[in-house]
C-alpha cells in the first residue's frame, strides 16, 4: 500500500519534471571542472522549499548521480577529471580516447555508473539499518587505517613505477599539510600569509594538476607549428559508430563476462560510501586497485583498460547510495551532500534516525527515496547518452581554439569554489607542478589523492597518539586491527616478493 503511494508520488508530473531539470543541470555542473555536486545541491536548497518532500529528495538524488557520471566526460575527452573520483581512471579513459574509442570509454563508465547506482540502492533498501551499525564502529583508529589503505592503493596502481607513485603520493600529502590543521594550534608552512593558513584548497589544485598542465602540454606540443590541428586530426583516427543498442549489448556482455568483479566493485563502493568522511574517491581508487590486482591482464591498467574503468565507475556511483545509509539511519552525514540533505529533511519536519524506518507515516517517504534512486539512475542512461553524443564535438574543435577556452574554464572553475583569486594562483602553481611531474613521468593521480586525504591521515594519526602514545593501540580495536593488518599486508607485499625474487629491479614493474 505504502509502496503504491510512494510509486505514485515519484511518478507524479512534478517529481519527474524535477528529475529531468536536475539531470540536465547536473550534467552541466559535473562536466565543468571546479563545479561540484555539493555546490549544485547547495544551490537548489532554496528551490526545495517549494517542492514536495519527495521531489526535494529526488532532486538531490538526481543531481549527485548525474554529477558523478558527467565528471567522466572531461576526464575522457580532455584528461581533466570533473570530479576527484574520476582521477583514479583518468589515464585509462584518456588512453581509450587516444585510440579513438572515447564513446566506448564513456558508455562503459555510464552503464557501470548506473549499475553501481542501482546496486547501492538495493543495499540501501535491503540492509541499511544493519550496515549503519557497522558505520558507527568507526573511530579514529579505524579512520587512520582506512585513509592509509586508500592512499596506499593510489601509490600501488598508478603508473609504471611504484616508487614514482609513492613519491608523487608523499608530495601530495605534504602539500595537504600546509596551513592550520584541525589538530594543531599553529599554522605550518604558511610563511606569514593569512591566505595560506587555510591551506591548499583541493579543487583548484586538482584543476591545476590536470587541466592547466594539459593546456601547457598542448602549448608545448604546438610550439613548432601552427596549431590548426584538432585532437582527432592529431590522432588520425575516426570515431566509430555508436548507437544506443550497441551500448546496451556492450554492457550486457561485459557484465556477463565479469559478474563477480562487478559485484565486488559495487559492494566495495557501497561499504566505503557509508563510512562518514570516506566517499566516492576512496571507493574508486580501492576498487581500481582490487580490479588490477585480480586481473589477468594487469599490464593494460593505466593504458586503456575498460575493466578498470568499469569497476571504478561502478564503485564511485554505488558509494553515493552508501552515503545515505548513515544519514537516514543515524542522522550522521556520510559526505557534504548528505549534510545538506539532512538540513533539507529537517526543514520538511522529517527527522532522520532509526525511527524513520518504523514510523508508518515515514514509510511512504522511505519507499519514495528508493524509487527516486532507481528512477534517477535509469534516467541517467538516456541523459548520459545525449551528453556523450553532444560532447563529442569537442574533439573537432581545433586545438588553437580549445586550449584558450579550456584555460578560461579552469580559471573560472577555480575561482568559483570560494571566489578567491588566491585559488587561481594555487591552480597556476599546481599546473606547473603537474606539467613537470608529467615530463619526468611521475603519475598525477597519487598527488591528487594525497592532497585529498593527507590532512585527514595526519589528523587521525595525531588523535590516536593523543589518546595513547603506544603504536600498539592502533590495533587495539577489532575493526582497526583488521584494517591495519590489511594495510600492512599491502605495504609488505612488494618487499616480500622482492626478497623472494631477489631482483633489485622489482620496483620498476
Amino acid at each position, binding site marked *: 500500500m505504502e509502496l503504491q503511494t510512494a510509486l505514485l508520488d515519484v511518478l507524479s508530473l512534478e517529481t519527474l519534471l524535477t528529475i529531468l531539470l536536475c539531470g540536465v543541470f547536473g550534467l552541466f555542473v559535473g562536466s565543468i571542472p571546479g563545479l561540484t555536486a555539493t555546490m549544485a545541491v547547495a544551490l537548489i536548497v532554496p528551490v526545495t522549499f517549494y517542492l514536495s518532500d519527495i521531489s526535494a529528495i529526488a532532486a538531490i538524488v538526481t543531481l549527485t548521480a548525474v554529477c558523478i557520471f558527467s565528471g567522466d566526460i572531461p576526464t575522457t575527452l580532455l584528461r581533466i577529471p570533473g570530479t576527484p573520483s574520476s582521477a583514479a581512471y583518468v589515464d585509462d579513459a584518456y588512453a581509450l580516447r587516444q585510440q579513438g574509442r572515447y564513446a566506448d570509454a564513456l558508455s562503459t563508465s555510464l552503464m557501470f555508473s548506473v549499475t553501481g547506482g542501482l546496486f547501492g540502492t538495493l543495499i540501501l533498501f535491503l540492509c541499511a539499518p544493519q550496515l549503519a551499525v557497522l558505520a558507527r564502529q568507526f573511530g579514529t583508529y579505524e579512520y587512520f587505517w582506512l585513509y592509509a589503505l586508500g592512499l596506499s592503493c593510489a601509490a600501488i596502481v598508478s603508473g609504471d613505477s611504484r616508487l614514482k607513485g609513492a613519491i608523487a603520493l608523499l608530495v601530495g600529502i605534504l602539500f595537504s599539510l600546509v596551513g592550520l590543521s584541525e589538530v*594543531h594550534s599553529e599554522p605550518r608552512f604558511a610563511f606569514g600569509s593569512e591566505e595560506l593558513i587555510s591551506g591548499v584548497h583541493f579543487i583548484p589544485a586538482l584543476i591545476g594538476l590536470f587541466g592547466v598542465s594539459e593546456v601547457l602540454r598542448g602549448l608545448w606540443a604546438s610550439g613548432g607549428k601552427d596549431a590548426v590541428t584538432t585532437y582527432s586530426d592529431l590522432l588520425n583516427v575516426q570515431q566509430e559508430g555508436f548507437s544506443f543498442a550497441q551500448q546496451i549489448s556492450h554492457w550486457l556482455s561485459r557484465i556477463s563476462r565479469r559478474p563477480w568483479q562487478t559485484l565486488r566493485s559495487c559492494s566495495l563502493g557501497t561499504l566505503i560510501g557509508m563510512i562518514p568522511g570516506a566517499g566516492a574517491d576512496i571507493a574508486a581508487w580501492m576498487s581500481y586497485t582490487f580490479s588490477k590486482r585480480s586481473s589477468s591482464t594487469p599490464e593494460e591498467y593505466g593504458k586503456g583498460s575498460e575493466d578498470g574503468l568499469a569497476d571504478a565507475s561502478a564503485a564511485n556511483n554505488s558509494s553515493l547510495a552508501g552515503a545515505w545509509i548513515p544519514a537516514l539511519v543515524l542522522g550522521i552525514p556520510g559526505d557534504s551532500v548528505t549534510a545538506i540533505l539532512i538540513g533539507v529533511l529537517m526543514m520538511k519536519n522529517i527527522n532522520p534516525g532509526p525511527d524513520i524506518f518504523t514510523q508508518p507515516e515515514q514509510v511512504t517517504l522511505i519507499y519514495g527515496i528508493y524509487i527516486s534512486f532507481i528512477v534517477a539512475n535509469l534516467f541517467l542512461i538516456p541523459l548520459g547518452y545525449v551528453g556523450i553524443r553532444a560532447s563529442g564535438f569537442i574533439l573537432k574543435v581545433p586545438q588553437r581554439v580549445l586550449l584558450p577556452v579550456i584555460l578560461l574554464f579552469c580559471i573560472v572553475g577555480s575561482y568559483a569554489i570560494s571566489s578567491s583569486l588566491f585559488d587561481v594562483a594555487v591552480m597556476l602553481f599546481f599546473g606547473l607542478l603537474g606539467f613537470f611531474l608529467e615530463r619526468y613521468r611521475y603519475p598525477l593521480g597519487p598527488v591528487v589523492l594525497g592532497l585529498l586525504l593527507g590532512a585527514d591521515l595526519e589528523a587521525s594519526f595525531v588523535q590516536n597518539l593523543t589518546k595513547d602514545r603506544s603504536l600498539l593501540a592502533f590495533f587495539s580495536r577489532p575493526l582497526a586491527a583488521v584494517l591495519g593488518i590489511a594495510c600492512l599486508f599491502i605495504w609488505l607485499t612488494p618487499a616480500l616478493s622482492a626478497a623472494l625474487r631477489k631482483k633489485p629491479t622489482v620496483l620498476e614493474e
Partner: protein
Amino acid sequence: MNMRTLFVWSLLFSSLLMGCERQEAFPNRPITLVCPWSPGGGTDQVSRQMAYFLEAELGTPCTVINATGGQGVTGHRRGMMARPDGYTIAVITFELNTLHHQSLTTLTYEDMIPLISVNEDAAAIWVPADSPWQTLDDLVADIKANPGSLTASGTATGGAWHLAFAGWLQSAGLETTAVKWIPKGGADPSVQELMSGGIDLVCCSLPEAKQYYDRGELRALGVMAEETVPGFEDIKTMREQNFDWVLVGWRGFAVPPGTPQDRVDVLRTAMQKIVSGEVVIDDKSFPKFMDQRGFNNRWRTSDDFHEFLARNDQSLGKLLNSDAFASLAEGAVGPYDFPMLLGLLLSGLVIAQVVISRRIQTPAITDQESLETSTQSENVSSSIINVLFGLGMVLLYILLAETVGFLVLTAGLLVMFLWKLGTKLTSAAVITIILVPLVYYLFAVILRVPLPRGWWGV
C-alpha cells in the same frame, strides 16, 4: 581592421550599458554572504536561510559562498577585507573573538561594522545515555581520581568548544589538561567518535547534539547558559550546579569598515525585519526555521551587539592569555613531527629513485609524448614561448581581475591568446563575443558564482 574597430566599439558600448546601472538605489547587484564554515554545518544553514529571506526582502539575488579553512580565519578575513560597498556581507561567528588572541589573524571585532547577531547557543557537556556519570560532581570526582586519563572532544585544538570545556575545568578548580582533548574537525565527527566508544565525553552546543538528545542517545550533564534553555528544560545550567562558568557561541553578520552608512542601514533594517519574523514567505519565516532546527534565536543589533562583542573579547582574552591555556595549546604530537616523518620517507624514496634510474636507462620518450616528438626537435624555443604565454595569461588575470572586472579582462585575454595561437583576429573576436558573455551568464546568473567585479561592476 574594420572588424577590429567594430569589436573595440562593441566592447566599449556593452561596458557603458552596464555602467549605467551604477547610479541607481542600493542594492541593484547580487549580494554575497561569505560564510567561514563548510556547507551543511550550522553556520552555513543559518547563512543560507538569511540569504533566502534577504533576497526576498531586498529584491536582489543573495548568494552564500563558503570560504573555509584555517579554523575560520580565511572566511572572516575574506568577508571583513572585501570591498566596502555593501555587496559583500561577512558571516561572523564566536571565533572572531578568539582567533586574534591566538595570533592567527590581526583582525578583531573592531575591524568591521557589526550589523546584527542572530543566534546564541550555549555549550553543554554531553555523555552517552549509559554513562555512569549522573551529575557534574560525579564527573569532577572521576577526573580528580584519574587525572589525564579521560578523553573529550568537540572541536579542533583551541576551537570554541575546547575553550568552553577548558573554562569549565578551571571553574571546577581542575587543571585545563586534566582531561585529554582529542582535536576533531567539528561537533558532528566528535559526536560520532563518542558513539563509537572512542572518547568519554563531548562538549558542543545544544542544537549540534539535539537529534541524539531527542532520541535519548546522549545526556547533557550541564549547559553553560545564563539560564535554562527552552526546549532543553531538564538540563541544569553550570551556575545551578555551583560552577561559575558561562559560554555561548553566537553567529552574526557584519560589513567591512568604510561601508556607506545608508547602505549599512538598509541591510540592518532588512535583517532586523527578518530575524523578528516580519518577513514571511509561504508561511515560512526565519524564526520558525531557527526553532525547527533547535537554534536559539536571541538576537542583538547595533550598540547592543557591539557591546556584547567587546565583553566576549575581554573574557575570552583573559582565558586565552592565561598560563593554563599556553600549556593547553601544546599537543601530544608537535606540528612538524608528521611532516618531518614524511619528509624523511620522501628523501629516502627519491634517493632510491635516483639510484635505480642511474642503473636502468629508461626510454626517454613515451607513447604519450610521441605527439610531441616531431616538434620537440624542431622548435623548443617557440614551445617555451607558448608555455610562458599561457602562464602569463593566468598571471595577468590574477593581477587585474579585481580592478578591470571579469567581462572586459576575460574578453581581452581570450582574444589575445586565440590570436597568439594562430586564430584570425576576426574569428577570435567572434568566438570571444559569443563565449565570454555565455560563460558569464552560466556562472554569474545560473550558477550564482560571484565573479570578479571591476570598474564597470561586472
